[in-house]
């Protein structure tokens, strides 16, 4: 516990849901409104895990994952895509970029918690 998770989504309601669900489980959640914001946020706060939407303005999810993986500090940090799209191509694009896993929207809070537990222990 006491781990910090970065939640990246341009939808405030999804961010709130992630925040609410994970805070209740004892995690600290930092929010970013898009990929660009996320890249700024991680400069200031070290995070243990990233949960990101794919379709976002400015820097989108795939680019964000690529950018993070290129950073040595993020080499081994789990990055989960949170996306409405469930196509094999998008998943592969995400995996190729270095995503650890994915969650498809709509998701249940328990699913989110299970995935976070799976990856953070």
């Amino acid at each position, binding site marked *: 516990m006491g781990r910090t998770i970065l939640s990246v989504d341009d*939808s405030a*309601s999804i961010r*709130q849901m992630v925040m*609410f669900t994970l805070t209740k489980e004892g995690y600290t959640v930092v929010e970013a409104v898009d990929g660009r914001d996320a890249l700024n946020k991680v400069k200031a706060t070290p995070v243990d895990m990233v949960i990101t939407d794919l379709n976002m*303005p400015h820097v989108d999810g795939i680019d964000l994952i690529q950018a993070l993986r290129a950073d040595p500090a993020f080499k081994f940090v789990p990055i989960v895509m949170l996306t*409405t799209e*469930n196509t094999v191509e998008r998943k592969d694009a995400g995996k190729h970029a*270095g995503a650890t896993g994915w969650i498809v929207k*709509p998701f*249940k809070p328990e699913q989110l918690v299970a995935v976070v537990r799976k990856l953070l222990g």
Partner: protein
Amino acid sequence: MDAQKQLFREEAYELLTVLEGALLDLEQNPGDGENIGKVFRAMHTLKGSGAMFGFDDIAAFTHTIETVYNLVRDGKLKVTQELVSLTLKSCDQIRAMLDASLKDSVADTARTDIITMEFQKYIPAEGDTENPDQGPGPSCEENPSAPQARLMTYRIRFNPHRDLFANGTNPVPLLNELQGMGECSINCSMQDLPGLDEMDPESCYASWDIIMTTQAREDDIRGIFIFVEDTSDLSLETIQDGPAYDHDIEYKKVGEILLDRGVIARDDLDKALGSQKRIGEVLLDAGVVDRTQISSALAEQEQIRALRKKRAAVEESSSIRVPAQKLDDLVNLVGELVTIQARLTQFAAHKNDPDLAGIAEEVERLSAALRDIAMGIRMLPIGTLFSKFKRLVRDLSHELGKDISLVMEGEETELDKAMIDKLSDPLVHLIRNSIDHGIESSAARVASGKPSQGTITVSASHSGAYVLISITDDGKGLDTEAIKAKAMEKGLIPPDAALDEHEIQGLIFVPGFSTSSTVTSVSGRGVGMDVVKTGIESLGGRVEIRSAKGYGTTITLKLPLTLAIIDGLLVAIGNEFFIIPLGVVVECVDLTDDDIKHAHGRHLIKVREEIIPYIHLGRHFGLTGERPTIEQVVITELGGSRIGFVVDKVVGQHQTVIKNLGRMLKEIDGVSGATIMGDGTVALILDVNRLVGQVEAGEATSVCGGGSPAGLKITSPINKSAA
């Protein structure tokens, strides 16, 4: 969830404004990629978040629009004036849907369908851009695993690729998750680990052999590895453990297991068996296997052996029927033992002999364990009691012409057998009440928009040292106005009484109260509720009621786990000791001369700005003796009101073995039992509820004059019962 829905609505309204702005810009400049992206993302967010927060109509509607704009974004479709107008129209429709959701209604679906069809015209007929939305995703958690009856044993080989760590995967949580699913023996193989000079610290060289016994399905096990299936080799096989092997607890020999796995050939095995050494050693010496493979096979053997033993044990143990009386005797004897042990501990503490102290400690540990086991033996699942109610509900609902279903939850919750026996009557009463007074007739239910079938839920759960049993009906709830009027009519409350909702609901527990103006054979004249309350309180429990008019009633019983041993607060008055059940104690405060002076002769104490009445136990029981300068008040809470009990000294928490007072003394008011303390003295257990009742009724205020003989001086109550 409502707050989240509201947040989504706000967000959606905002998005619509953005959307309209982008669309108008797009109309002026149809090729503007940035605005196309904006429209797509807005629709995408509306779809994703909409589905999350239960706005399925919006999610479905925006799905089609999103598909169209995906085509636009990919350059397969041009933005036209027509498309922009249609999209603006759809914005209005989304807004209408949001507005409708506020009033719990639905927007004009016909219009939604027309717009959707218009959009669909833009999508090429092959529909290859459209993707099924709900494919098998990581939704591995989505299907609740239906456990299969029989335990299965799997051999799982998890061999990650070198680059496992590169996408942020940590194998340890996966293995932990596996362990959470069933009994596992995990063997890590490091045979691929190269020398230090060749090793890349960022690569994964380990692989794991896992033998797991679980009820989970194979799909669920694979689900754990869903994120790593591309970056590892995973094999999962069921270990042959059919009935053919079941006659014997022993599992296959290590050699056979290795043979099964294809690690060795039959010849190797035969050759090895020829020598007298242990098979594992031999194979190791022969160089056909390495140590990891052997230990993995041994783990499998061990796991299956344990499983077989367990199965055999389950079949053998089942249960033994024992007369309840024997168990009661056992518990009584354990009670005696606990008492004696307390004496021994006290004695040892005085003697200052380390040997004796050691023995005393050991006896204390053993007797505590014995006590827990003895109490545990008397525990029964409450389901045995609940199952009686099925018939009750069926018969009564037939008799009254009502359609009622009974839902039972937490039947496995365990409770002292003695407690279960005594709970039967109160629970039957409460359920009768729910059926008779709570649930309306089917016609009335339909008229008020409820399902015609009423539901009564009986549930039990543990909460610390208590069990909570609640009976919930979705009937008409308590009519507080009617209760108040009736109580006034009966003279139970003064006409000008100002009571809050909760207090009014509490009135149904007042003796002689009945809300049903007609008498039925089902719940009599409603004299029952006060009997229920008294019954539960005599078990050391409490009754709480929550009701909302039109929505139903929940009555919750809070009961101690056992009747034989309770947690008590030991207090002293003069030379006498008393136990106050810890469950009702809120706090202890000092009572100084100043406090008494400030109260102007009334028995009131101010605790954090709250005025609390108190009962002076010494005077109440007529105990003489010197009053200490600072007395202590034990503040208790019963039925929502706080009452203090003044004692000379609070000694501390005490594991109280409850003893009956015997036939002669059983009618004494204000005392519910007794316990024997370490040094052999008797402490009376106070019946706080009764004491408060006595004082309130003003009947027990007479104080015996001095000069009573030493010993118990519970004067007035004893005289009363003896008379």
